[in-house]
């Protein structure tokens, strides 16, 4: 066979091939998304329940003052909408990363990881794909919320996009990192209790932080340090055509940190794959 000789050569991929790989991973995630309608619907129902029930019940209890980016008094529903968008992304990030862990020993993850592309590229592509799905979910939520009188300025829908990409990426990378490092969190209940709930409640998603400060200064600092607060605020400001620079900096910084951590965790030489017990065979 002459083919054998001709394939023995220095191996490298062109930038175009890197893009083909990325496109393929995103495309496949899109196909899965289309075929798993239940997942999409449940991702949409969750924030809507909060909006329709929780917010309706709470609007009389909680008085809001005028705080940026809002220029007038806003209804409680309007206040929590950005937090619920961030929640969609938080769930999506944790869920898709958990799927990766479940897939680890089965085919899905192996198929991805035996690709000859560098692993950081595969994981980043996978994260981007998951993020794009969460962006679609966020816009679907906003569409329904519009009928519930959550009407941000039209241009806000556009300025929201980069914020959504960034926050989705951060939360996806966090999920990937957490699920790779902590063995106890392999089921979703654990992730709910120890990651999603604390992050969601100790943030500015449901109540403005100045109100938290009034009741507990300590909790206030915890909220300020919570990256999820900054994802929420980045989204909130972007929805009203503004940039919250501090939140932007925090989200960018955390994204870089989490992504780096996740790539290290998935490195065969250092990461969790090497430490874990494999099934006998």
């Amino acid at each position, binding site marked *: 066979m002459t083919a054998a000789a001709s394939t023995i050569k220095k*191996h490298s991929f062109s930038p175009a091939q890197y893009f083909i790989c990325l496109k393929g991973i995103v*495309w496949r995630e899109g196909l899965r998304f289309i075929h798993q309608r239940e997942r999409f619907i449940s991702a949409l129902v969750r924030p809507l329940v909060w909006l329709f029930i929780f917010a309706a019940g709470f609007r009389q209890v909680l008085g809001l003052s005028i705080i940026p980016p809002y220029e007038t008094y806003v209804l409680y529903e309007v206040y929590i909408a950005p937090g619920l968008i961030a929640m969609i992304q938080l769930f999506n990030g944790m869920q898709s990363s958990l799927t990766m862990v479940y897939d680890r020993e089965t085919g899905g993850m192996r198929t991805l990881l035996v690709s000859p592309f560098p692993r950081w590229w595969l994981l980043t592509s996978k994260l981007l794909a998951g993020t794009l799905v969460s962006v679609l979910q966020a816009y679907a939520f906003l569409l329904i919320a519009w009928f519930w009188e959550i009407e941000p300025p039209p241009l806000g829908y556009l300025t929201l996009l980069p914020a959504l990409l960034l926050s989705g990426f951060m939360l996806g990378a966090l999920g990937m990192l957490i699920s790779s490092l902590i063995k106890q969190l392999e089921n979703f209940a654990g992730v709910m209790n120890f990651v999603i709930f604390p992050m969601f409640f100790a943030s500015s998603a449901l109540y403005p932080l100045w109100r938290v400060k009034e009741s507990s200064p300590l909790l206030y600092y915890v909220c300020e340090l919570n990256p999820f607060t900054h994802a929420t605020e980045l989204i909130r400001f972007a929805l009203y055509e503004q940039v919250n620079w501090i939140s932007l900096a925090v989200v960018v910084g955390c994204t870089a940190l989490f992504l780096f951590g996740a790539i290290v965790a998935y490195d065969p030489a250092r990461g969790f794959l090497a430490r874990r017990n494999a099934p*006998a065979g």
Partner: protein
Amino acid sequence: MKPPATAEIPALEIERIGHRYGTRVALNDVSLSVGQSSFTVLLGLNGAGKSTLFSLITRLYAIRSGRIRIFGHDVAAEPGAALSMLGVVFQSRALDLDISVRQNLMYHAALHGISGRQADPLIAQVLDRVAMTDRSRDRVGNLSIGQMRRIEIARALLHRPRLLLLDEPTVGLDIKARADILDHVRRLSTVEGIGVLWATHLIDEAGADDDVVVLHKGRVLAQGALGEVVGKSGGADLRDAFGRLTGAADQRELEATA
């Protein structure tokens, strides 16, 4: 480092590989090689270390001691080059059931940097090779297990690897489907010159002209052409040889611990 392009380079060369999970030794000083266009049967009972070995070859686990080379490319040092020559059929199902055969193959092509336009003829070719051309638009979930296996083999061949690994590829198949798949893959090695490493616990899957590696409790007990292995062990056939080899090893182990 560029390896010389000679025919003597084995498709797969495993040198003194060891691996442990905690204190449990999964592989102990394993060395074996698969020649170009060789059909090598990796024979071992469940728990012998076959899947661990596959995880190491595919770089899912880091290699702690020893070396693995694919056509001269070290898996640890040049993973891209090594993996691009490798096609794998995993033991567990690795296809998306919700999407079509063609979409699954397209995804795999993208993971190897093959564009949609280039992938089309390749897909047609590999589907033809496993006699599944007419099912390309079908949802994978609608296929039988045997057909899925054939699609997985087609997928593993899509990027034209020179080495094909199969981990217990006939699990769950009926006798007819098993024979079909064996036949397909054996033809690949003889006609296309692809090196094949076929891991199985089913002794009768090894053919008279195949190379055999006997793996038992993480150690290689024997390797070579089937006839040689049987001859050296003094057995009547491979089943007998396997029994003698593993029995003797267990006996030695027993004596060592006693």
